[in-house]
């Protein structure tokens, strides 16, 4: 087989693969731009003849704006707390030697392997007892259960890739060990912190289980559960508005992820690659 033919086959396979992955999303975008009158014509079309933003306006006015703010507040606060708390621990685990370091780290990381559904009943009872049900606090607290261990793990693997010599030099110049870390290494860790923060933000933005369980007021719901409102009783669905809100909900995390994918993946794989 000549090189040209092989190249051609490769491109055909490549294009078909990308199109297949994209097709459902193309459908989502196209339905979000369709006027209701165009929505249910057969044959179903992906091309939109008269694009309209009506669905977006309806979505934003009824649900999306309010829920977007909720999601943004909850996810930002969770990210700040989780990353702040995790940097401290990641420092100790990567730079200090003490007895029980390894088991303690495993004790933390192993929680990522266990199902959140196994702790949701007691969490619900705790939130109920503390009168936190139906508040942002319930979400932020419960989101910390799964973000802190991941953040510690990611930051820990980022810190381990940074050299020790600069910190040691700073110590010779009279810095304390902790001071040397925070003055010298922390600035170098900025890409790692950004990636970790983005990861935490993305997973909390997508969170569904706790949001469904702990929040009941429509005006406090984050996006992931808020948009279910377009699915009405008796299976009546406002597909146009639902698809428009889906596009709006996906966009911010997609943009973040696109910008930071390299760092996130390098954080997740570095543990496995270094053997």
């Amino acid at each position: 087989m000549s090189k040209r033919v092989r190249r051609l086959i490769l491109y055909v396979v490549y294009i078909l693969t990308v199109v297949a992955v994209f097709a459902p999303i193309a459908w989502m975008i196209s339905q979000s731009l369709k006027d209701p009158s165009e929505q249910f014509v057969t044959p179903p079309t992906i091309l939109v003849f008269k694009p309209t933003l009506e669905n977006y306006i309806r979505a934003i006015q009824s649900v999306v704006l309010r829920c977007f703010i909720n999601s943004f507040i909850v996810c930002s606060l969770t990210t700040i707390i989780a990353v702040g708390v995790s940097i401290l621990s990641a420092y100790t685990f990567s730079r200090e030697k003490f007895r029980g370091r390894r088991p303690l780290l495993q004790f933390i990381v192993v929680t990522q392997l266990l199902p959140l559904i196994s702790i949701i009943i007691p969490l619900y009872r705790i939130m109920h007892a503390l009168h936190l049900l139906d508040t942002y606090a319930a979400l932020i607290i419960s989101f910390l259960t799964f973000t802190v261990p991941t953040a510690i793990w990611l930051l820990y693997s980022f810190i381990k890739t940074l050299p020790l010599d600069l910190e040691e030099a700073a110590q010779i110049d009279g810095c304390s060990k902790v001071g040397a870390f925070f003055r010298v290494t922390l600035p170098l860790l900025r890409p790692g912190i950004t990636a970790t923060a983005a990861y935490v933000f993305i997973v909390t933005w997508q969170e569904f289980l706790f949001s469904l369980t702990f929040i009941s007021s429509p005006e406090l719901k984050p996006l992931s559960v808020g948009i279910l409102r377009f699915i009405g009783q008796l299976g009546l669905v406002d597909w146009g508005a639902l698809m428009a809100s889906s596009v709006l909900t996906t966009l911010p995390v997609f943009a973040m992820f696109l910008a930071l994918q390299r760092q996130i993946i390098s954080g997740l794989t570095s543990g496995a690659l270094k053997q």
Partner: protein
Amino acid sequence: MKRKIIPILFLIPSLSLIIGLFYYPLLQTLWLSFYHIEPRSGEVSFIGLENYLRALSDVTFYRVLINSFIWTVLVVIFQFLVGFYTALLLSQNLKFRSIARAIIILPWSMPGVIAGILWIYLYDALIGPINWSLLQLGFIRKPIAWLGSPNTALFSVIFTAIWKGFPFSTLMYLAAIQAVPNALLEAAEIDGAGIFSKIRHVIIPSISPVIKLTIMLTSIWTFNYFDLVWVMTHGGPINSSHIFPTYVYQIAFEWFDFGMGSVYGIIDAAILLVFSLIYIKVLGKGWVD
């Protein structure tokens, strides 16, 4: 001595969060599983193993168990295959690679709820494009209610889960493949290795730590994945697509039987714990050191 105290203090916030919000609730779930909790009054009475015995004599338990395994195994295998294949594709020298990569990431970056809603639409018997296309192509005679029939519901959600989750594997494998030294690939080429033998003898061995890690992560995430099944089928019809997380949720927050919900929650955690321990053994020391 004083120097040691600050670093240890640094552990306190995260450790107290993890103990208070994870280990303590987990123990409480275990405790609750031996009790009957009155939904209205919240009154608690000890009933020993009765919840467990009731669960084990219920056919739904075995349905959920089998479904959970079918769901996890199929999703993980296909995410591996599709992820590996797309990673290989994207590691080739192709035009518009960064656009293709961005498109491939899309399903993973979208919240599970949204993927679920989108696929409800796609699978719809009356207005969904999947049925319409299959009818036109002559594969089926009349529309199929993919999510509405006990025979197809679970597999339809599995298909969606593969689509939604494979990009994570793609990214992991792509990063690993790009780290394979070029010299190795060139040496194989000089030895006359074709593409398949290069994959088998050079690429797979060099990235096997990443493959193991990725399969472990996707297995655990899939086993624990609640969003898609809940949004798309609610575990139905007639429990045909229930997996552990969705069934626990239904018992606890629709039937308000916290005791029985805890039983399923504990069994779920026990299965994962055993599974994780086996995996950590397989992975060796590398996963956290």
